[in-house]
């Protein structure tokens, strides 16, 4: 006996589920994405997963992406470089055209991107996720050459900066001083310097327990401060000294040869290993395209992430001015989706979709000791501001909560696998 295929039922089901016909009739939209980090890779992945009719080209000079998140665990001896390095093959398999070249310039009027290798790409919509530039010279004596001796390890590139800092920590004798210079807001990854302090302490406690960490900060306070300082006291005793800006913590000058960090009021701190996290701005391509304002960062429509200064260019990730949202990988990734969905809608003469932006930043303070900050944000109706949803989000509870800390450390690892799996898987 054969069961006849219920054609009418299948056709009805297919009709209910098929993508709306008008979308298919449109000419294919050319989306160019500059930058293959948390913003750009998420944008390319989201576009291909949800809008398979869109042509996506990703421009990224690095052959593989080394994440900033979990770079601090490498410094702590808990990860190797291969574990935080991701290939672009997964995006290629999703149908993204990946070009390993540097985007040299954007012509917003002609809607073209010029590549350093001479090629030129036309786009209907550009997703610009170029990341940050380090402001060489903002700290006197700290330029690109100086970073070869005093690493910043804040723009991972091929990973060499993070590996250099790790090697210096390994070479330091027990009893040495690790000095950090931490910038004023805004900068990439607000809790990052403090997780870094934690992970360096984690390494030193095991291998060089007489050593000290001197954290010189331009600010008076920082992200998850109470939680970090609780953890530092509990895990590392008096190993860590944090000096805020109002106690002469702001580093204004470095002497690379002498390994001296000099603060605003002339105190000279001689250290054995120095990690300089300098002041930052949007990456050069955004500034050279005239998209940044005099802060050095890019103002955007808070609903579509279209740059205020140029139609058709959506700026996401650490380069933009995100209102109350942090410059984090998670925000880069969730706003990437909204930017792509908005770019497609606007190209088709529709309004950007309703938006909700979501952030979770985990930090490792020590072994099985994780803390977090959560934020849920919405743009206002006219795209001029972003507000955090009242009574939501916030940081982990304080107090002696070992089970919570252990779970959050586990969840941090799962976060890393999930978000990079989405971006590159």
């Amino acid at each position, binding site marked *: 006996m054969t*069961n*006849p*295929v*219920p054609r009418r*039922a*299948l056709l009805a*089901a*297919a009709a209910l*589920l*098929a*993508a*709306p016909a008008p979308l298919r009739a449109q000419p294919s939209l050319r989306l160019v994405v500059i930058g293959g980090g948390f913003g750009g890779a998420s944008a390319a992945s*989201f576009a291909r*997963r*949800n*809008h*398979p009719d869109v042509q996506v080209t990703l421009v990224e000079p690095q052959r593989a992406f080394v994440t900033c998140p979990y770079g601090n665990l490498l410094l702590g001896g808990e990860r190797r470089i291969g574990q935080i390095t991701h290939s672009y093959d997964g995006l290629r398999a999703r149908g993204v055209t990946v070009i390993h070249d540097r985007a040299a310039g954007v012509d917003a009027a002609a809607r073209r991107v010029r590549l350093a290798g001479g090629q030129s790409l036309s786009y209907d919509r550009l997703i610009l996720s170029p990341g940050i530039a380090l402001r060489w010279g903002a700290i006197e004596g700290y330029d690109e050459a100086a970073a070869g001796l005093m690493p910043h390890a804040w723009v991972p590139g091929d990973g060499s900066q993070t590996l250099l800092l790790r090697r210096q920590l390994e070479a330091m004798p027990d009893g040495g001083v690790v000095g950090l210079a931490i910038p004023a807001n805004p900068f990439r990854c607000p809790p990052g310097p403090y997780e870094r302090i934690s992970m360096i302490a984690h390494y030193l406690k095991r291998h060089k327990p007489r050593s000290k960490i001197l954290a010189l900060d331009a600010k008076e306070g920082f992200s998850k401060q109470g939680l970090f300082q609780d953890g530092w006291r509990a895990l590392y005793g008096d190993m860590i000294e944090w000096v805020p800006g109002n106690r002469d913590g702001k580093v204004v000058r470095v002497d690379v040869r002498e390994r001296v960090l000099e603060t605003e009021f002339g105190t000279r701190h001689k250290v054995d290993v120095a990690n300089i996290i300098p002041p930052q701005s949007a990456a050069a391509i955004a500034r050279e395209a005239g998209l940044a304002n005099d802060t050095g960062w890019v103002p955007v429509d808070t609903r579509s992430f279209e740059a205020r200064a140029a139609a058709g260019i959506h700026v996401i990730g650490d380069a933009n001015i995100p209102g109350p949202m942090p410059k984090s990988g*998670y925000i880069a*990734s*969730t706003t990437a*989706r*909204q930017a792509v*969905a908005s770019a497609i809608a606007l190209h088709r003469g529709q309004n950007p*979709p*309703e*938006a*909700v*932006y*979501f952030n*979770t930043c985990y930090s490792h303070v020590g072994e099985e000791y994780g803390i*977090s900050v*959560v*934020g*849920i944000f919405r743009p206002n109706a006219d795209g001029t501001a972003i507000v955090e*949803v009242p*009574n*939501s*989000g*916030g940081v*982990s509870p304080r107090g002696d909560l070992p089970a*919570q800390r252990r*779970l*959050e450390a*586990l*969840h941090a*690892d*799962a*976060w890393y*696998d*999930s*978000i990079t*799996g*989405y971006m590159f*898987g």
Partner: protein
Amino acid sequence: MIVSAVRIILPAALAALLAGPAAASGPAPLAAEGCLGCHGPEGRGASGIAALAGRDRAELVAILTAFRANERPGTIMGRIARGYTDAEIAAVAEHFSRLR
């Protein structure tokens, strides 16, 4: 016979159409995209973090509502759920309940 075949095959056809990366249900609601950063691509879960794909819609709504009301213990989900509206919770639950 045709009636029974419809009963058997239609759900299977629906499941087939809804499965896989090109799930014909269209783009996920953007509120659900926010979950994927921890709960894994397609909400499949990650080590120590619950899978969302294929869970019962009403169960997901109940869990999120309890987190929001501070009636369910957790590490960060209470802080998260308090940021979402009823409509977003419903859309998120609907989306993940339809994934396999």
